[in-house]
């Protein structure tokens, strides 16, 4: 006993237990991070795989035998007790069983045979096959449809419906044509029509401005109404073209048969993509997978954000973070330079420094409230009074928007930049400053030519931390500019190209919205994972860019800080 006691004592004295504890803590942290990333990666990325569609024959709770097409989503287990409590059929329970297996199956066909996700108990499945001809239709509205295509009625020749072996090729051709027309429509709407609308709006505002000022410039007023008339004529031409395109789009119709032999007519104009997963090879599926993934990244969301892509959210997040960095870097650096280089180090500077550090700890929603109250209502409201009186009472800047969100986040992250810049400035040896001053440089020259370049890695560290914090922030953004669905991107082809006053979408808020505000939980869940993965990737990407830059600068100035 005494021997083992002394063994433990010497073991503790050697310090080895602490090393083990450190190793354990590091290992735990790493596995937690890797675990999180793996979970969201697996759950998010699996969503885009074109999985097989099963034809499942099963018994419903009302003892009917039913057939349904569907994609297997996940296996779940319920306890027998729970099953019975929720009014399950006692005959289904196996003797001595404590848990029952059930599948979640995505059956789609919303509005035809609800619900679009079903729980099916494994014991009740009597047959499960994967017929080759079943087709998945990704529709613009109402989610996926599953069924066997039977006939295609084309607008070109409505009397001769296509069916049989040529059907799939004809359908793909028709869908491609429809997608083409849809592209033309969005070009027309987003380009010419949008442009005309913007010009009309500007003319209207100018006219109103002249009237508000009670200007006597009747000549200009007449010019304006003449221009308005020309634009209206142009608009009418384009609109006629648009209506023609819509008519052209709305011609072909596909008939599919569901598993329970119901025939549904689907307008080809409503189909985005169609594929027959059971007949696809591994390579084809991989191709389809990447095409699905690309569409997720590049398309607009549909169906209350539960379908389609997240492009506007990616765009909004990146743009907002970049603007935030542009604002926060000069402010933070100037503040830090003043505190460290110019201010007399006294009680006041100490108090300011403590206040700055505490600012970093203020809950972000408080910044959101401040941003709304000060930036949006006060600053924005006054800007509107001064510069945009003609559009009042409709606010221009007096409403949440991109610039206010960026400013609010800049305010939120400025302490980080100040603190790390100050640290960088402190680390620069006095001998270097003296060397510069001894050559006749003023303090400002020394600052710009020697000190700031040497402090740039530290400044970038601050910006990296600021970006990481800002990109992940959601709460304050909800108050100052982020919306669940923005009709237009903050950058487009009409003057002034970057629209700082517009509302925008954000990946973090998108996750919240899709995950918790969506009416279709099962359809939204994989998108939550995928969006979360995207957000993490985006932040890592932004950080890696900054870290690479910092590494390059550090190599440039290595060896000085000693």
């Amino acid at each position, binding site marked *: 006993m005494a021997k083992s006691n002394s063994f433990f004592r010497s073991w503790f004295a050697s310090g080895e237990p602490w090393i083990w504890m450190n190793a354990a803590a590091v290992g735990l942290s790493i596995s937690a991070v890797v675990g999180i990333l793996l979970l969201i990666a697996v759950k998010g990325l699996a969503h885009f795989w074109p999985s097989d569609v099963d034809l499942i024959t099963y018994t419903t709770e009302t003892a009917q035998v039913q057939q349904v097409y569907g994609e297997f989503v996940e296996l779940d287990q319920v306890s027998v007790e729970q099953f019975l409590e929720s009014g399950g059929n006692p005959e289904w329970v196996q003797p001595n069983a404590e848990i029952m297996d059930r599948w979640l199956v995505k059956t789609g066909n919303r509005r035809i045979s609800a619900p679009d996700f079903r729980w099916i108990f494994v014991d009740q499945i009597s047959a499960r096959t994967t017929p080759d001809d079943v087709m998945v239709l990704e529709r613009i509205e109402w989610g996926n449809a599953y069924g066997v295509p039977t006939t295609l009625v084309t607008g070109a020749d409505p009397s001769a419906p296509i069916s049989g072996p040529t059907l799939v090729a004809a359908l793909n051709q028709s869908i491609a044509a429809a997608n083409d027309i849809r592209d033309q429509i969005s070009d027309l709407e987003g380009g010419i029509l949008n442009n005309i609308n913007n010009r009309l709006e500007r003319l209207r505002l100018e006219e109103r401005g002249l009237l508000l000022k009670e200007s006597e410039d009747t000549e200009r007023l007449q010019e304006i109404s003449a221009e308005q008339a020309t634009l209206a004529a142009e608009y009418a031409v384009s609109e006629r073209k648009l209506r023609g395109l819509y008519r052209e789009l709305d011609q072909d119709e596909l008939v599919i048969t569901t598993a329970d032999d119901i025939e549904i007519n689907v307008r080809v104009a409503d189909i985005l993509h169609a594929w027959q997963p059971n007949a696809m090879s591994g390579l084809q599926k991989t191709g389809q997978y990447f095409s699905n993934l690309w569409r997720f990244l590049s398309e607009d969301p549909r169906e209350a954000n539960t379908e389609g892509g997240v492009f506007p959210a990616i765009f909004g997040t990146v743009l907002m973070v970049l603007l935030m960095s542009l604002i926060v870097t000069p402010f933070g650096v100037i503040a830090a330079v003043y505190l460290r280089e110019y201010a007399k180090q006294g009680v006041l500077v100490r108090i300011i420094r403590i206040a700055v550090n505490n600012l970093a700890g203020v809950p972000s929603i408080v910044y959101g409230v401040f941003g709304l109250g000060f930036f949006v209502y006060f600053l924005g409201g006054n800007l509107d009074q001064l510069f945009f009186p003609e559009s009042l009472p409709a606010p221009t800047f007096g409403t949440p928007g991109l610039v206010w969100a960026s400013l609010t986040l800049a305010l939120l992250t400025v302490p980080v930049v100040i603190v790390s810049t100050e640290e960088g400035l402190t680390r620069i040896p006095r001998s*270097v400053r*003296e*060397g510069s001053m001894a*050559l*006749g*440089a003023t303090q400002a020259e020394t600052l710009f*030519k020697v000190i700031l370049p040497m402090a740039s890695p530290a400044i970038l560290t601050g910006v990296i931390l600021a970006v990481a914090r800002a990109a992940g922030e959601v709460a304050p953004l909800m108050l100052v500019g982020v919306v669940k669905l923005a009709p237009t991107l903050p950058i487009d082809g009409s003057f002034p190209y970057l629209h700082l006053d517009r509302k925008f979408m954000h990946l973090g808020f998108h996750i919240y919205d899709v995950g918790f505000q969506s009416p279709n939980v099962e359809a939204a869940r994989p998108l939550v994972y995928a969006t979360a993965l995207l957000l993490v990737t985006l932040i890592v990407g932004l950080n890696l860019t900054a870290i690479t830059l910092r590494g390059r600068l550090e190599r*440039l*100035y290595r060896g000085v800080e000693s």
Partner: protein
Amino acid sequence: MSQPDTQGSSPAPTTGSESGADTGLETSLEVNNLSLHYGDKQALIDINLGIATKKVTAFIGPSGCGKSTLLRCFNRMNDLIDDVTITGSINFQGYDIHDTRVDVADLRRKIGMVFQRPNPFPKSIYENVAYGLRIQGEKSKAIIDERVEWALKSAALWDEVKDRLKDSALGLSGGQQQRLVIARAIALKPELIIADEPTSALESGPMFRNCQNYYARTLPLTPGAQKNP
């Protein structure tokens, strides 16, 4: 001994030669009743001396006796330290350097300084030497090129670095860095060079004399230079 041109812009006369009278030499810088306090602590007590023009003057004394502090008074380097009070006067080219009419940056251009530890900037070798000229507003590349070469040759560094002027100065050895900062100081052709143990990192005495031969000036030295005859 050939003398390179001085700045030319400041032909101000020197003030007499009373303090350097013992040696009968012309003085370039004259210290009168100089006292310096760091807060409450007095570091220099009532110093009077003259520094002869175009001669080497060395200060010798035990560590902490105030040699560096006195040197740093000459180009007002102590201004950068909080809580320093200086009384008495230092006359240079007819003015008290503490006079409000004196431009500190200009003073420091005329009185170059070499520090105890080499402190090159994290820039290329060329840019280190050109730094002072660029600060003065020199734009002509030809003039800067010429002056950089001259300064590096004067500091006996040219042959070692002429092929890598664009490389970072931080890649040089300690001795090379020391010669680089000497080159940096003399590139401005100052009237006076003050050097605070500049040879502590140089490998040999003859090397330093080499610099002197190119650019002999009033060169006060502290103990590091004792080894030099």
